């Protein structure tokens, strides 16, 4: 008999008119790992919420969720609480927001122990220490008194897993547990989950949008799209012989192809020498701590039509370097030349007219568009500054042109940003940059917040635009697959220093440095 059985599970949001899950049938046996794969909006997280009774009150649930013989739908609070947290553990995507910043991790792990297992304070603390050891946190006993902000992202996720394990569950639901983490940490967390499952005989429901992770961890895989199950089967078979077109689409979503060579004698667009970014240290009484060096003396040269990929884990200084090049970083030092102008030492006012030549595209397509301006206003905004002679109608026409260029329907430019999907927003952000006809675009993780299939389209768009306009790209990403598809040369950053640089293929195929090798290994690049 299966441990968890979903039968015809349907979740509807009546007021929004959305069917999040539509008649889902799924089984999970004891000790088995099932991966639930789908793009954002496919309803995969709704499954986790439905099983743990955490759906928002306006959701209408029908069908059945049976856990070890107990029907969970419609179960009331006290009975439900004896199961979730105790027999079903849940790990969320974002360990920073899932942990309470005001309490030590020891306290937070001890809570479920005392609630579900009736342990005394002392027993719970001892057990919490054991659990932290179990999830492989170094120096576990000492870490009990640490606050969440004192831990790294990977450590926080280990704490979350320890909390989920505190009740000694039979089933662990992990909802995108590694998405917010660096690739090397991602690999460690996956290994930990696989190991825990083996040792504790857990059943694992692993929810992700990233098919590459699935292959490493899951015995069976179920593919969701628009709330429906499109295919389910053993993971190996699913990869070698996908039946549903949706599955094939997901599998083919890895960005493919290589960038064409830079034309001979292309002019140098950007030249940077010894760029450093030093953030002032935390201020203490009467003195400040030593400044923290986020970027330490980086040199860059970028020609028209060339893409330089900047690769590194979070905290390596990639984004600071991008901002420094754009002169958006007040804490930056060093020499930056754009075409024939030296930007060093120019103040804000004298920089303003030059800014149209170098434009940014940011990672988060939600946060980078002003929510109360229409998409058309956002795209045309730079023209107000740099071509003030344009009439409103001319500006609008230019916005429409930029929309067509990023393959968006120009009629949509009267909508506000929230009405667009993530990929569409990123296109708007690209259109905003392009409307000024820049020569250099700094792309700061432009595809990281997007689904794989959307990512593929954005990569293709960026490539086409580069050819059409001879753009130079500074492409910042932690995602080696995307970098490989877009960049001519790669610069690997670690702690603000250049670890390795060279042509993309040679760096990613034959990394010289140990750090680069670790990155490449963790990224698990499919041969392409």
């Amino acid at each position: 008999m299966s441990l968890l059985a979903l039968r015809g599970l349907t979740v509807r949001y009546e007021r929004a008119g959305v069917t999040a899950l539509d008649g889902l049938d799924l089984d999970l046996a004891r000790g088995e790992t099932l991966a639930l794969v789908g793009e954002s909006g496919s309803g995969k997280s709704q499954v986790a919420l439905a099983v743990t009774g955490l759906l928002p009150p306006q959701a209408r649930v029908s069908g059945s969720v049976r856990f070890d013989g107990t029907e969970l739908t419609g179960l009331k609070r006290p009975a439900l609480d004896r199961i979730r947290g105790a027999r079903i553990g849940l790990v969320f995507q974002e360990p920073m927001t899932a942990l309470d910043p005001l309490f030590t991790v020891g306290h937070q792990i001890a809570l479920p122990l005392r609630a579900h297992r009736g342990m005394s304070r002392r027993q719970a603390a001892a057990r919490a220490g054991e659990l932290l050891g179990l999830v492989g946190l170094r120096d576990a006993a000492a870490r009990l008194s640490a606050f969440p902000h004192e831990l790294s992202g990977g450590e926080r996720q280990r704490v979350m897993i320890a909390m989920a394990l505190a009740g000694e569950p039979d089933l662990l639901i992990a909802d995108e547990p590694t998405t917010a983490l660096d690739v090397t940490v991602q690999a460690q967390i996956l290994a930990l989950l696989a190991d825990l499952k083996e040792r504790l005989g857990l059943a694992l429901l692993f929810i992700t949008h990233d098919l590459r992770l699935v292959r490493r961890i899951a015995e069976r895989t179920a593919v969701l799209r628009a709330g429906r199950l499109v295919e389910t089967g053993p993971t190996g078979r699913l990869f070698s012989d996908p039946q549903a077109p949706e599955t094939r689409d997901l599998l083919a979503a890895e960005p493919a192809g290589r960038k064409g060579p830079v034309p001979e004698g292309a002019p140098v667009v950007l030249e940077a020498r010894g760029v450093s970014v030093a953030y002032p240290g935390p201020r203490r009484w009467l003195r400040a701590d030593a400044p923290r060096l986020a970027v330490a003396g980086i040199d860059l040269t970028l020609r028209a039509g060339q893409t330089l990929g900047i690769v590194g884990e979070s905290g390596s200084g990639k984004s600071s370097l991008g901002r420094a090049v754009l002169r958006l970083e007040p804490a930056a030092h060093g020499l930056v030349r754009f075409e024939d102008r030296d930007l060093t030492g120019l103040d804000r006012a004298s920089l303003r007219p030059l800014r149209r030549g170098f434009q940014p595209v940011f990672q988060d397509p939600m946060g980078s568009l002003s929510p109360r301006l229409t998409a058309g206003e956002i795209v045309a905004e730079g023209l107000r500054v740099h071509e003030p002679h344009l009439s409103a109608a001319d500006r609008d026409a230019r916005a429409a042109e930029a929309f067509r260029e990023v393959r968006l329907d120009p009629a949509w430019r009267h909508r506000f940003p929230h009405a667009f999907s993530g990929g569409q927003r990123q296109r708007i952000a690209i259109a905003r940059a392009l409307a000024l006809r820049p020569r250099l675009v700094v792309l700061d993780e432009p595809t990281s917040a997007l689904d794989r299939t959307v990512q593929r389209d954005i990569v293709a768009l960026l490539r086409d635009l580069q050819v059409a306009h001879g753009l130079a790209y500074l492409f910042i990403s932690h995602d080696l697959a995307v970098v490989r598809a877009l960049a001519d040369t790669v610069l690997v950053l670690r702690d603000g220093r250049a670890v390795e640089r060279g042509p993309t293929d040679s760096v990613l195929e034959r990394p010289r440095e140990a750090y680069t090798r670790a990155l490449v290994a963790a990224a698990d690049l499919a041969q392409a």
Partner: protein
Amino acid sequence: MSAAATPVEDGASLLARARRRLAGDRPARAGMAILALLALACLLGPFLTGHPYDRLHYDYPATRPSLSLYPRPDAVRPALDRLALRMRVRAEDVAVTPEAVRLTLVADKPVDPRVLTFFARSDTFGEARILGRAEDGRRLTVEAPLRRLRFLAGTDTLGRDLLTRTLVAGRLSLALGLLATAVALGIGVAYGALAGTLGGRIDAAMMRLVDILYSLPFVFFVIMLVVFFGRSVALIFVAVGAVEWLDMARIVRAEAQAIRRRDYVRAAEALGLSTAAILRRHVVPNLLGPVVAFAALMVPRVILLESFLSFLGLGVQEPATSWGVLIADGARSLESAPWMLVVPAGFLVSTLLALTLLGERLRVALDVRA
């Protein structure tokens, strides 16, 4: 592709869209109607109630609200007796009709006709006429019309018509509430958004100034103003406005600080927008939500703050009045004359409700997601 010809529901900028949505929004229209009605009543009402707001009715202290006319038939005789006592005469052969009273004044000495002015001075009767004399003027037959009065909302302890007073008070309170809030809103949003957006030392300096102004005791500040400029209603506006913008500036600054770190502000800077344009186009539109909510709550606070000033003798002075003063008076006579509290408080609460409703709908209208 003729994109411009495509009709789109949301095809306008934020403000035009908000205006159109508000106009089509039933609760918002109700809120605006209530406010307009209140303002109109306060402006024109005092001319229609038939009572001057400062007229004292000694015969009707703390009269409860009613539709009926005063004096009541059974109250005429006691009123006459009181009057006769003051005129040092006896009232005989009293005949009361709904319109007038006819009686004979009797005294041991001839009655001096000048005592008849007592009739006109009372609240119950009008000018008395002499109908006839007898016994050498020791019996004087007179007729006095009854003064027919109606106190829809009752009277206060001094017998002044409460409705008239409340409406007159509303002129000051509404003007003060709306104007002082508008001033505080303007200064506070501009100052706070600027400080939050510029950040760094400028922000620190600007906010320290706010802290210094905060730490000035309010009453001390008002007394200083009174010493320098004398007592006037305009001074209340200045004093209240000078204090209330501080709160607004703090709220707006915190909000602006959060917005400044957003990528869209960074993108705007990269586009080459000036700080002023970033403030106008990106920062201020995105902090309107909490500002609108706070402003709707500021109006009643300002109205009550004025009553505090008036209580200290620094605000409006009798017989002029305001809702805050009326409510404070009403609270003191709550047990004997609850309507003195209920009537002005009712006006204040209606204003508050209308404003909150309007503020909430405005916030929704400004929200592009809704």
